[in-house]
C-alpha cells in the first residue's frame, strides 16, 4: 500500500512541478511484426505503437523518477498496456539511499538468459527482449560498503506475467486464464530480496537471496483443454554471479539454487548459465569489433523451455557514426531436439531516429516440446524509434 501511494505521489509530483529541476524525454516506437509461418486463424502480422515518457525532478538531496509506457496494439489486447515501469521517490537516510514506489532493476551477467534477475516481472507480451519488464512496487535501500554495494528489497505486491492473445504471437494458441498462487495471500504476498555486489581486480562478483513468488508461472491446461492456468510457486533461492574481465575474453557465470513450492509439490531446483565472450577488436584491420559468444544454460525448473541449452552467437559492432550493430544467437537443446535462433540489427538514421530489425525462429521435432507449441511463432519485427 505504501508503494502504491508512493507511486501515485511520484506521478502527481512529476506532473505538477512548476519549476522543473529535471528533464522530460520521450520515445515513440512504431513496430511492425510479420509472422511468416503463422497457423490458420492466427495473426499474419501485428502493428503496435509505444510511447515511453522518462522524467525526473531533483529536490535538494532527493529525486523523483518516472518512466511510463503506453502501448497500443491493433489486434493483440495482451500487448496493450499502461504501465508505470518506474515511478519512485529516492532519498538518502541513515547512510542508505531509499527508493519507494515502482522500480526496475537488473541482476545478472550472462547474455542469453539471466537466471538471477528476480526483482521484476517480465512484460513478456511486449516481446521486447530483456527490457520488457514491469515495475516492481517496492521499498528498497542501497548502501555502498567497504565490501561492496548492498541492496535490500521489500516488494509489496505481485505483478503477473503478461501474455499475448491466443491468436497473436508468440502464443501456445490456448487462452491464459486467471492466475493461481501457492501462497495463501496470492497477489498480495510480500517478497524479500537482498544482493551484495563487488569487484576486485578483474573480477566482478555478486551474491543474492530471494524469498517470494516465482516470476515465471507453471502453465497447465485446464480439464477441458480450453485454457492455460498460470500457477505461481513460492520460491526461496540463492543467486551467485561472477564475471572475469580479461583483455579480450569475458568469462561469465550466474546460478540460482533453491526450492519452489507449488501445486505439484516442493522441489529443489538449480538454474545456471556459464559463458564466454571473445572479442576481436579492430577485426580484419578495420574499426569493426567481432564478438564470439558461447553459453551453456541449465534449468531444471518446470517452467523452463528445456533442461539444457547450448548457445552460440556472433556480435558485430561496426563502430561507425550510425552505431550499426548486429547480434545473432542460436540455442540448441539436443535432448528435446529443439532450437531457437534470434537476430538483432540496429542503426541510427539521424539524431532523433533509429531503426531496429529483430527476428526469432523456433524449430522443434515434436509438437509437445515448448518450441513445438511455438512452431508457428517465427517473427520478423521492424521497429522505428523517434526520440523527443
Amino acid at each position, binding site marked *: 500500500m505504501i508503494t502504491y501511494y508512493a507511486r501515485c505521489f511520484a506521478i502527481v509530483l512529476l506532473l505538477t512541478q512548476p519549476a522543473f529541476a*529535471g*528533464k522530460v*524525454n520521450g*520515445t515513440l516506437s512504431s513496430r511492425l511484426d510479420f509472422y511468416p509461418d503463422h497457423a490458420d486463424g492466427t495473426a499474419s502480422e501485428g502493428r503496435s505503437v509505444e510511447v515511453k515518457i*522518462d522524467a*525526473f525532478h531533483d529536490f535538494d538531496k532527493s*529525486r523523483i523518477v518516472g518512466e511510463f509506457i503506453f502501448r497500443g496494439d491493433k489486434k493483440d489486447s495482451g500487448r496493450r498496456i499502461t504501465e508505470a515501469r518506474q515511478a519512485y521517490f*529516492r532519498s538518502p537516510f541513515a547512510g542508505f*539511499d531509499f527508493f519507494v514506489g515502482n522500480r*526496475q*532493476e*537488473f541482476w*545478472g551477467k550472462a547474455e542469453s538468459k539471466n537466471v538471477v534477475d528476480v526483482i521484476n516481472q517480465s512484460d513478456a507480451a511486449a516481446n521486447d527482449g*530483456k*527490457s520488457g519488464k514491469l515495475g516492481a512496487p517496492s521499498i528498497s535501500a*542501497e548502501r*555502498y560498503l567497504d565490501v561492496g*554495494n548492498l541492496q535490500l528489497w521489500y516488494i509489496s505486491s505481485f505483478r503477473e506475467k503478461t501474455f499475448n492473445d491466443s491468436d497473436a504471437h508468440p502464443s501456445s494458441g490456448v487462452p491464459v486464464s486467471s492466475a493461481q498462487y501457492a501462497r495463501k495471500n496470492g497477489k498480495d504476498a510480500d517478497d524479500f530480496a537482498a544482493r551484495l*555486489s563487488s*569487484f576486485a581486480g578483474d573480477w*566482478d562478483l555478486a551474491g543474492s537471496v530471494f524469498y517470494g513468488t516465482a516470476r515465471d508461472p507453471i502453465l497447465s491446461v485446464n480439464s477441458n483443454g480450453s485454457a492455460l492456468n498460470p500457477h505461481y510457486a513460492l520460491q526461496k533461492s540463492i543467486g551467485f554471479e561472477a*564475471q572475469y*574481465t*580479461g*583483455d*579480450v*575474453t*569475458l568469462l561469465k557465470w550466474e546460478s540460482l539454487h533453491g526450492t519452489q513450492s507449488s501445486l505439484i509439490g516442493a522441489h529443489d531446483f538449480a538454474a545456471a548459465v556459464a559463458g564466454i565472450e571473445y*572479442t576481436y*577488436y*579492430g577485426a580484419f584491420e578495420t*574499426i569493426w*569489433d567481432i564478438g564470439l559468444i558461447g553459453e551453456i544454460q541449465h534449468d531444471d525448473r518446470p517452467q523452463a523451455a528445456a533442461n539444457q541449452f547450448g548457445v552460440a552467437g556472433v556480435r558485430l559492432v561496426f*563502430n*561507425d*557514426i*550510425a*552505431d550499426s550493430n548486429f547480434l545473432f544467437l542460436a540455442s540448441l537443446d539436443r535432448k528435446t531436439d529443439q532450437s531457437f535462433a534470434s537476430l538483432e540489427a*540496429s542503426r*541510427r538514421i*539521424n*539524431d*532523433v*531516429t*533509429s531503426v531496429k530489425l529483430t527476428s526469432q525462429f523456433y524449430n522443434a521435432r515434436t509438437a509437445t516440446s515448448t518450441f513445438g507449441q511455438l512452431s508457428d511463432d517465427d517473427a520478423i519485427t521492424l521497429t522505428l*524509434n*523517434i*526520440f*523527443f
Partner: protein
Amino acid sequence: MKLGTVTMFVAIATAVMITAAFASPEKGLEIAIEADSRDKGFGDSTAQITMILMDKYGQSTERTIRNRTFEGYNEGDKSLVIFDSPGDVRGTAFLSHTKKADSDDQWLYLPALKRVKRIASSNKAGPFMGSEFSYEDIASQEVEKYTYNYLRDEELNGLECFVVEYDPVDRKSGYKRQIVWMDKAEYRVHKIDFYDRKDALLKTLTYEDYNQYLDKFWRSNRLVMINHQTGKKTELVFADWKFQTGMTERDFEKSTLKRTR
C-alpha cells in the same frame, strides 16, 4: 655520383648523431612529470561537451555529452561520461577507473535494461562513439603510461615549445608513438601527431582556446582531431567548465552509474 652518395651518408649520419645528442629520455620524462604536477590539485571537474563528427565530404553530425572527472592520487583519475544525444544513446554512461600501470577498469550503463556491464579495456584503439578519438585518446593521461624522449625545441603558433616523443608502454595501444608539442611557459599541449603501429602518420590533434581556471589549471575549449588516412575529422567543443564541485569518490563507483542523468 659516388661522392654524392658519401656526402649524403655523412649528412644523414651527422643529422642522426646531432638528433641523438639532443634527444633525451631524461628530459622527456622531466617535461612529462612537470606537466603532470602543474595539473595536480584540481580535485574534480565537470564540463559539457559537443562532439562534431565530420566525414571527408564535410558533412557533419553532433553528439552532446557530459564529463565528470575525479582526480586520483595513488591511482589514476576516475571519469564518467554521460551521453545526452543522439536520442538512441541518451542516458548511456561510461565509467572509467584509470590505472597508472595496469589496465583500466571500465563499465557501461545501458539505460533501457538498467544494466551495468563491465567491459574489457583492451579496446583502447577502438573509436569512441564512432569518432576519430579512440578510447585511449579520451582516457586520463598518466605519466606511467608512456616512455619519453625529448626531441627538440620548436616554435608553434608563436609559442616556444618542447617537442617530446611519447611511446605507449601498453602494447595494446593503437599507436607506435606520439609526437607532442608542449609550450615551455605553461606546459600546455598544443598539438599531437599520432603514428600508427606501422609508424605511418595516422592523426593530428590540435588544442585551441585555452582558458585558465582557479588561477592554475589550463583547459582547452576546442580539440580538433584529423585522421590523415581517412580524411575524417572530429571536434570536441567544451563549455561550462566547473572545478572542485564537491563530488566525492563515491560518485564514481559503479553502483552510481544507474543514478546519473
